[in-house]
């Protein structure tokens, strides 16, 4: 009876750790969405601020992951000491009363991590493009203001006018 109560208490701690991870990854997903919007709006101050928030949230997630691992280790030691692979899916069948609840939370956690991972890939691709675009714009401005560079038409004749590039023109 004592042991069962102990297991239930430990399962509850594990459930809390999973719930915190889910909430952490949802926050990450929202933050990444905001970062995408600030890149789209070219709002550099906002983006810098979000990068700071992202650093903090990454640290929080690392701590939460550590707590989750510790909770799993405790339960494995009590319920399945011979299990070689320390995976939540292997632990679930050994949880006496919380199988359904933990399994549902596991699915939610997987989907939260996957969504955040996909969003992160999208943001990284966008940042890569933004950097490339900025480099090209800098290069174009340099070429425009560089008197020694010449432009040629498709026929190979020297062009008398610059390619149309309206940035910095006075309206």
């Amino acid at each position: 009876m004592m042991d069962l109560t102990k297991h239930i208490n430990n399962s509850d701690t594990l459930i809390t750790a999973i719930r915190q991870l889910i909430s952490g990854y949802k926050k990450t997903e929202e933050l990444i969405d905001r970062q995408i919007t600030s890149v789209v709006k070219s709002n550099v101050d906002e983006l810098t601020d979000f990068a700071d928030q992202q650093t903090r949230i990454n640290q929080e997630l690392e701590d939460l992951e550590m707590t989750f691992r510790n909770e799993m280790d405790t339960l494995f030691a009590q319920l399945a000491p011979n299990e070689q692979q320390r995976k939540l899916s292997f632990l679930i069948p050994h949880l006496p009363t919380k199988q359904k609840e933990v399994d549902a939370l596991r699915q939610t956690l997987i989907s939260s991590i996957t969504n955040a991972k996909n969003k992160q890939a999208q943001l990284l691709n966008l940042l890569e493009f933004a950097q490339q675009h900025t480099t090209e714009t800098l290069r174009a401005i340099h070429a425009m203001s560089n008197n020694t560079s010449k432009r040629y038409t498709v026929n190979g004749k020297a062009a008398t006018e610059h390619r149309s590039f309206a940035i910095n023109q006075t309206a």
Partner: protein
Amino acid sequence: MRELFNIAKSGLMASERQTAVTANNIANANTPGFSRQRVDTSPIDYKKNNLSIGLGVNVDQVTRLRNEMIDSQIRMKESMIEEFGARSEVLEQIQEIFSTQTGNDLDQVLGKFLNSFSELSSNPEDYNRRQNVIRETQNLTQKFQSMSQQLGSIQEQTAEKASGVVSEINGLLSELADLNHSIRRGNAAGKPDNNSLDVQTQKLEQLAKLVDIDTLKDENGGLEVRIGGIVVIQGDKAVNLRGESDAANQQFRVRLENGTIIKPEGGKLGANIALISDEIPGYQSELDAIANALITEVNSLHTSGFDLNGDAGLNFFDPDATGARNITFNMAVGSDPNKIAASAAPNAPGNTQIADQIFGLRNQKLSDGQTVIEKSITLGSKAGSELNNARIQMDTARSAKNMLFNQQEKISGVNIDEELTDLIKFQNSYQASARVLNSAQQMYDTLLSIV
């Protein structure tokens, strides 16, 4: 007095022109592709005794404010959005073939087929268990055939879509060639046709959605357009493209009137061509490989065994089948349950060695190190992961396009030094954000591996 009157008149005319341009800007604020225009004025003066005497202003020209570099990047992104959109649409259909969510996925049907031999082993003379093997085999061959047919019909539908896209491209090429005519005429007369230039921008965006294009401006302002490196618009002449579907070789070709083949790589058309020629056949051939491996392995075991009548085992599947499309259960076995060769010795009905070995295919690694079931799971998840990837790429391209649109909107009246400082600030900020994200990239996979 006369000079004073002329100064006032030129000022009024310039102001009237500016008002008209502003009104035009406001009226077209929501017109897609419209660029703001501005009136360029210059002072009129003449020199007398080394003194410059002002005579008012001249309206030199109405300039169209547009950054063509951003335009070309927007077109590139439009092309990518459509390309990944078209891919996602088809990959979604392919994924539905592989993941049914009704417990009828290929790996599950394969599992049931192999399990039926294990059940047969427990009582090899039982008629119902033999009937069960027949039933599961029929389910399996039907599954292979239906998946292959569905892939084939997706390929046909994609070819039809590609033909439709080619027609749309032809329409746009012809409109762009007409626009070239009026733009070049305007430029030659010293009065740029800004409205046609806006329509040109809009049409180019529409064209870029359909196919990846390269553009070059000639010295008269006309636009030369290339697809796959081949000129399709020059001056006011556009070529007509022809789409050819070659079902036998699983190809879709685009030709010019003179027979030259062009190879689009992007946009809707590029995506459709890649799907028809490479991606769908890729899935088809992996599905065939699974079916062929199964035909070879099961036939080899079954022909080495003996049926319930003591006769040598027949081919279990038709050995002439070339893949999933025509995998067939040998009807001689299918119509007589006693013909299932479960035994390794003649007249030994209790021997289940062959049935066990066929069931053992469940765990037997093939030449590529995977079992048939693992191969079918890998194939199913490949469709899902490619779909996911296409969606990420599409979302990224969409965000990048929005970013470029915002930048296009901001153009005009910016100090060059401020602009350079901002760009450097942007660059630093982008790099810092990317560094933060990269540092956490492993975190996702590590956590996924333990849940």
